[in-house]
């Protein structure tokens, strides 16, 4: 029996070489996922969450490149695979859905044909694949799937398109589905349907889910564990209840208090002073220290490593230990 974690990302580093300098998009991120687990990577724009997800698929677009680290799927390092083997991994073992399904779907092919195409990759005869495609569309709650399979993407609503995409992506029963802001373009009642569907597919197939989102509401709704990213670093991770109820990193704490949970007249929201640093010129030490209310002298000199307080939690902050990263 293979005891390796389903996905184990260690010290992942990604940078983009631009005319204005080197953008350190992901600076040493580490996390892991078990089978059937829902892990959410959350953070604000430019924190590196989407780049991390693309790196797992080895789809970081140029001028970006993966500088180092490892991405192990059941123990095998994806960063050492040749391109052909990686193509086998994509879709078959790891699949991905994006924010805007209109861009991901081919506008000139019928919805059913696009799902069928994915199934044919596994040497299934075409008519059998079509039958399975229709069946899958039904399972992602497309009403009247035999008829809808003949629709073009523009004839479907946004929620239906995302469900078609999801159907296509799970058609080959991947071990891991990466969903990058899967419901950001959708209305809240439709978002609820898509999130329900993702959880149901997880329950039925045992696949793991890596959700990339800026929306802490979605995190609260479906994640088992959460990783919080800031300026290219994973600053904290742990079980969802701990992250919401007892955030350890000052950034997570401030972020939670900036959420509008109040009604009018109950007081003003907490804000985070200052701005996210430029990823070209990151401050020395902890990237959050210029904005941190609890900063100490060491914070501006050395990047804190992840320390492990207890209970499956990790935090990169000197307030919680002296872990230090080289």
């Amino acid at each position, binding site marked *: 029996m293979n005891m390796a974690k389903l996905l184990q990302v260690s010290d992942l580093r990604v940078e983009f070489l631009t005319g204005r300098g080197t953008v350190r998009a992901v600076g040493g991120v580490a996390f892991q996922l078990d089978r059937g687990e829902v892990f959410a990577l959350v953070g*604000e*724009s430019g924190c590196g969450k989407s780049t991390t997800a693309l790196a797992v698929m080895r789809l970081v677009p140029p001028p970006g490149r993966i500088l180092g680290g490892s991405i192990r799927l059941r123990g095998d390092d994806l960063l050492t695979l040749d391109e052909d083997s990686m193509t086998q991994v994509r879709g078959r073992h790891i699949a991905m859905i994006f924010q805007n399904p209109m861009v991901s779907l081919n506008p000139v092919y019928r919805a059913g044909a696009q799902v069928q195409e994915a199934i044919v990759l596994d040497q299934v005869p075409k008519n059998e694949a079509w039958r399975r495609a229709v069946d899958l569309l039904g399972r992602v709650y497309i*009403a009247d799937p035999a008829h809808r399979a003949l629709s073009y993407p523009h004839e479907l*609503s*946004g*929620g*239906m398109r995302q469900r078609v995409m999801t159907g296509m992506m799970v058609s080959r029963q991947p071990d891991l589905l990466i969903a990058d802001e899967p419901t950001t373009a959708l*209305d*809240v*009642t*439709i*978002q*609820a349907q898509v999130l329900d569907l993702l959880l149901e597919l997880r329950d039925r197939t045992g696949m793991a889910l890596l959700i990339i989102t*800026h*929306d*802490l*509401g*979605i*995190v*609260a*709704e*479906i*994640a088992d564990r959460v990783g919080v990213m800031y300026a290219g670093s994973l600053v904290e991770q742990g079980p*969802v*209840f701990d992250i*919401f109820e007892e955030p350890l990193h000052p950034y997570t704490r*401030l*972020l939670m208090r*900036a*959420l*509008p*949970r*109040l*009604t*009018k*007249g*109950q007081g*003003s*929201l*907490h*804000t*985070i002073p200052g*701005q996210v640093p430029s990823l070209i010129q990151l401050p020395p030490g902890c990237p959050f220290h210029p904005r941190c209310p609890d900063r100490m002298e060491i914070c501006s000199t050395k990047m804190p490593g992840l320390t492990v307080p207890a209970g499956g939690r990790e935090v990169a902050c000197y307030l919680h230990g002296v872990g230090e990263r080289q």
Partner: protein
Amino acid sequence: MSIRPHSTTETPLIVLEDACKYFPVRRGLTRRVVGHARAVDGVSLAVARGEALGVVGESGSGKTTLARLVPRLIQSTRGRVLYDGQDVETASGRDLIRIRRRMGIVFQDPSSSLNPRTPVRGSIARPLELQGIRGKEATRRVLETIELVNLGAEVLDRYPHQLSGGQQQRASIARAIILRPQLLILDEPTSALDVSVQAQILNLLQSLQAQIGLTYLFITHNLSVVRYMSDRIGVMYLGRLVEVAPVGPMQDRPLHPYTAALFSASPPLNPRLRNRQRYRLVGDPPSLISPPPGCSLHPRCVFAVEQCREEVPLLVDAGDGRQVACHRWMQLALAVQTG
């Protein structure tokens, strides 16, 4: 929570009476009109002075169209729109300019609502220019206004792309309030912003309202934001107002099944509430061009009965300052847990 008492003798700032906006739908080579999309379909509503009214609804519900009827950015198809007692629809060119001077609008995407080719000083001062205010007086007012929105004078000479999203939105707000309007129409003002920046803008909007006594018409799809910003909320579905109520009562005990579905689908920012009771809607929203007969929610509503399929429910008084458009509101006991 206390609700601002609205004196009945004072005229409301905005009154909509059966306001409708139908957009023609054209097909074919001759661009023949084949139907109408009923973006706003018979909305009656009053907004009191100093009130913050939030309008929520999903895409295509008509909330943005409704907001655009108030300054007559689009002409209504039917019904009346009154601003401070004056009919906006029939106002002459000059009167319309006077009416619009008393309103400001802030749009969702600040990077596209500021002129990219001029330093932000130009965008902020533009309303003054249109009113013939230039030179020293204009500079004085610009500086006074950017201070109100917590921007430093150094941003005035920068171009929009040199500002952060939050600074851009502050500049848009400065432009909207520079003529000291009575009303601010806010169309998804924080939807393009990150959580930490959103918090700054929401705080700013609240303190501005208190400082200069603004009335807010706040359009959003974000229920956490609308709860934080509003005294009352109007919920729209397929061009109609289905429920209007003060924030607290609406979120605890919605009267309309659509309100219940919307509030219970919205993630409550608390993982302990993930197994809360949810009111689910069946299927996808229908087309605006051929909305279902009767109550437009009936094909998706689990509470629908025969009457819902036949009769359009009117927005009726439900007591405690609440209104609802549902045949069955008295029989349903809906309750939603929010974070």
